[in-house]
């Protein structure tokens, strides 16, 4: 723990915390949120549907804490939020979370998944992303750093990892870069013009490949050769030399635009004379719609469970967006904001739509999920689930930090060190659990092996068994079953029990035989394995 603390101090000390314009960000995010809601309102009107009611406070707190901090709220946070009577408490909560110490830690992982896909999980790369989010780097800066560097600063070398992991396979580098950063899957246009999507021709596939075919790497060092063209067999069977062409059809001529070539230093981690990847960065930011649209659509998917265009790597003219005009407006707004990630997050979670209930009020037909008129159930990611499971059952107190940490915070004049410490300490315990959980693919599917693990594995039993000062131990010391049920539901579901539910659970509890702490353990098990805990709702 001491060691971790030292590292955290180092991170803090070496960093200028510039948050002067945070209020401005929030209010401009508010305006954007209202605009988004206006698009949705008019969409619902046209579709002749109405939206679900606004979610209750407890549900909203759980949802947004999971989305922005990667965990469920603590009991103390629940009590504080539910008892707060101010009208703008949701807005304050959003500000606290977006600016809070846990958001970069959590969102670094989210970005890692989004960018690296099956190659995700490298700790150094995650740390690079976390630091970048903490420094409020914008999305275009991150993109540039991942494509062309600089890779020579402290902790910066790992920024080449997206390229490096794929450098030995031009197809996957081309396809992944195009999917991740531009929201387009051109893999079907490799052997022939895309059979299903009119937009994508072989020229696009090999045009995009031409930005990468000179790239070298695969062992931690990424470089670029000075020459080499992509050749391919056209549908007519004749060999062609590919044009260096972006998805928009823009062909890059020999001299690149805004980015002057770096001078050769002999270090092959630096881009070569006229780097093709450098040209890609220039052209992508000039033709900004692909770049901007892809990110906002992916963020929309993150917060709403599906993209405005879905799947998020299938943005093309034949795949209409769910809501007219919204994606385009969001993309323009995001670009105009200078690709400000925090502002985009704040805007999306400040919408009325994000705060809607996931439960339909009556027996009428529930609108389709793609209308965004009702919040959808989203399975927790493996990481959210593991962290939340440890948090709600855990012996540790996640809320308060020890005296030493508080002194350090006062000394440095920064808050949040204790939170970061706690987060990292909990995170280090999640590894074994994460491996046993189902990953959240596009279509989440529960496997029997996760169910078996939750039902019988000792690691889970240990969490729900009374031990030390964990939840079950605290429950077993309570005098009445009513108290026990209330505390258990509040801890695990982040809400007080509903009346009927409370009395039914008390009845269940009183009917159980055997050791009291074992009964508490079974109650806690049933709560943490129930769907209400497994999903964000």
């Amino acid at each position, binding site marked *: 723990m001491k060691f971790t603390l030292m590292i955290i101090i180092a991170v803090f000390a070496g960093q200028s915390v510039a948050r002067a314009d945070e209020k401005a960000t929030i209010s401009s995010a508010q305006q954007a949120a209202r605009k988004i809601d206006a698009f949705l309102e008019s969409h619902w009107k046209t579709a002749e549907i109405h939206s679900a009611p606004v979610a209750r406070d407890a549900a909203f707190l759980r949802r947004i804490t999971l989305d922005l901090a990667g965990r469920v709220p603590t009991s103390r946070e629940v009590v504080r939020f539910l008892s707060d009577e101010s009208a703008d408490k949701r807005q304050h909560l959003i500000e606290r979370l977006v600016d809070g110490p846990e958001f970069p830690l959590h969102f670094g992982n989210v970005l890692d998944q989004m960018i690296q896909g099956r190659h995700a999980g490298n700790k150094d790369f995650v740390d690079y992303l976390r630091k970048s989010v903490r420094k409020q780097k914008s999305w275009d800066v991150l993109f540039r750093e991942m494509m062309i560097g600089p890779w020579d600063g402290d902790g910066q070398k790992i920024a080449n990892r997206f390229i490096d992991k794929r450098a030995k396979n031009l197809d996957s580098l081309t396809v992944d870069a195009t999917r991740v950063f531009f929201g387009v899957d051109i893999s079907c246009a490799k052997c022939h013009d895309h059979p299903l999507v009119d937009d994508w021709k072989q020229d696009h596939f090999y045009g995009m490949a031409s930005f990468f075919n000179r790239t070298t790497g695969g062992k931690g060092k990424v470089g670029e050769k000075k020459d080499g063209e992509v050749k391919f067999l056209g549908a007519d069977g004749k060999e062609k030399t590919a044009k260096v062409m972006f998805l928009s059809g823009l062909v890059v001529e020999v001299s690149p635009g805004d980015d002057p070539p770096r001078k050769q230093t002999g270090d092959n981690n630096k881009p070569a004379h006229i780097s093709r990847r450098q040209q890609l960065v220039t052209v992508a930011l000039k033709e900004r719609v692909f770049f901007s649209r892809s990110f906002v659509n992916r963020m929309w998917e993150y917060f709403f469970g599906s993209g405005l265009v879905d799947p998020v790597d299938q943005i093309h003219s034949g795949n209409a967006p769910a809501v007219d005009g919204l994606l385009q407006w969001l993309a323009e707004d995001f670009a105009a904001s200078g690709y400000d990630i925090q502002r985009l997050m704040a805007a999306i979670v400040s919408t009325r739509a994000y705060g809607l209930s996931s*439960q*339909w009020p009556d027996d009428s037909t529930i609108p389709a999920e793609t209308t965004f008129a009702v919040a959808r159930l989203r399975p927790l990611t493996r990481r959210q689930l593991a962290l939340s499971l440890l948090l709600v059952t855990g012996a540790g107190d996640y809320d308060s930090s020890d005296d030493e940490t508080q002194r350090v915070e006062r000394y440095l004049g920064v808050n949040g060190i204790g939170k970061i410490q706690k987060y990292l300490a909990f995170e280090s315990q999640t590894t074994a659990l994460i491996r046993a959980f189902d990953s959240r693919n596009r279509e989440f599917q529960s496997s*029997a*092996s996760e*169910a078996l693990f939750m039902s019988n594995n000792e690691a889970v039993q240990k969490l729900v068994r009374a031990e030390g000062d964990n939840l079950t131990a605290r429950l077993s010391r309570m005098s009445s079953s009513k108290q026990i049920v209330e505390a258990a539901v509040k801890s695990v579901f982040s809400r007080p029990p509903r009346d009927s539910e409370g009395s039914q659970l008390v009845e269940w509890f009183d009917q159980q035989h055997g050791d009291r702490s074992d009964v508490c353990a*079974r109650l806690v*098990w049933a709560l943490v394995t129930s769907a209400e805990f497994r*999903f964000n709702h």
Partner: protein
Amino acid sequence: MKRPALTACGSIEHDAHRRRFLQGTLAGTTAALSFGRMTVAADDVPNAITLQKSQKRVLFIWLAGGASQFEMWDPKPGRETGGPFRTIPTAIPGYHVGELMPKIATQMDKIAVVRSLDTGISAHAIAADLISTGRPKEAALEYPEIGVVLAKELAVRDSLLPDYVSFFLSTEGRRRPATGFLGGRHTPLMLEESMRPANIDLPQGVSRPQHTEREQLRELLSREFAERRAGAGRVGGYNSAFAKVRGLMQSDHLFDIEQEPPAVRERYGRTVFGRQCLVARRLLEAGVPMVKVARGFWDSHHDNFESHRELVPDFDHVFSTLLDDLHERGLLESTLVIVLSEFGRTPKINKDVGRDHYAAAWSCAFAGCGIKGGAVYGKTDDDGKTVVDGKANAGDVAATIYKAAGIDPEKHYYVGPRPVPLAKEDAVPIDAILS
């Protein structure tokens, strides 16, 4: 064999309490329904022998590392590439196999061999992907393993048993069947550490009735939660995964070969491979549609002949015993048995008396469901260097497997808007070995 009943403890008192709780919580009808389902007794588990003799199933024997066709199905005696072993005649006139397979030789009328595989890739990981999915890797689409597709297609509705059990105890070349675009729901039950699946025993300190009551409470809370929720189907899927737990815990006896008569255990022998194949037979017989047994250590870059002298007789014994056993139980007609590797081994014998990876001319074998026993398909040249007749690739093998199991290889899945046929578009099933 008597298995414990599934009802928690069967006491009237418990039932009454449970019913009261369920009725108090949910609308009466649903509660009664769930209550009824909860009390399915163990003896109601579909009895494979009576109910499912016609159900199709597949046993996939994976010789990891690449078994040598020269020492098994396609010997070249007397040639420079042939190695030291003699050949022996088989039940099929004119067809000889390596002398290390005397028992299989007598059973060749049940087996079909393809001696003309030319699959192109001779690096372990990529080749294993290619052969086990029947397709080259594609950047944006992850394909499921053939076994995963078979398990999905052959699954029995509402079965309490797993759809796919995969053994891979040897660490060498260990791979997990890719579920690809079919998703995590199709993850096989993996046995990597021991012959029993993980997490199928009651946890410490929880009795069977308590385990059941705990699950009932979980299910009930989940179902209450799902009411009027958008996307409640996902909760249904989540609950159905937990509903499998009971059946899986109950299937533990299937993994226990002590329950086989000593004579049967003796017959399969005491090798790990033998014991795994016996468990596999128990699983198939009980109605598990897809079982894979991987046997490692075939990657004989050194001392190829010594290692095959050890490995092939074990394979010969176990494989022939298995075919006999399945046949005697009337299961062979409905069970497709596949013997496959990622590639074969080089004609050239290297300086370490080994054979290296070779994908240009190698063999695989099939038996049982949909297979024409005794068919010997394709031909290599005198030195086994090239295929001279009946060239087949990985896609063709996949198409053959699907067709043998009664599944149309041209059937499509949809990944988003994109239609994806089970076998690669240009794959052609090898009809000559199909019955």
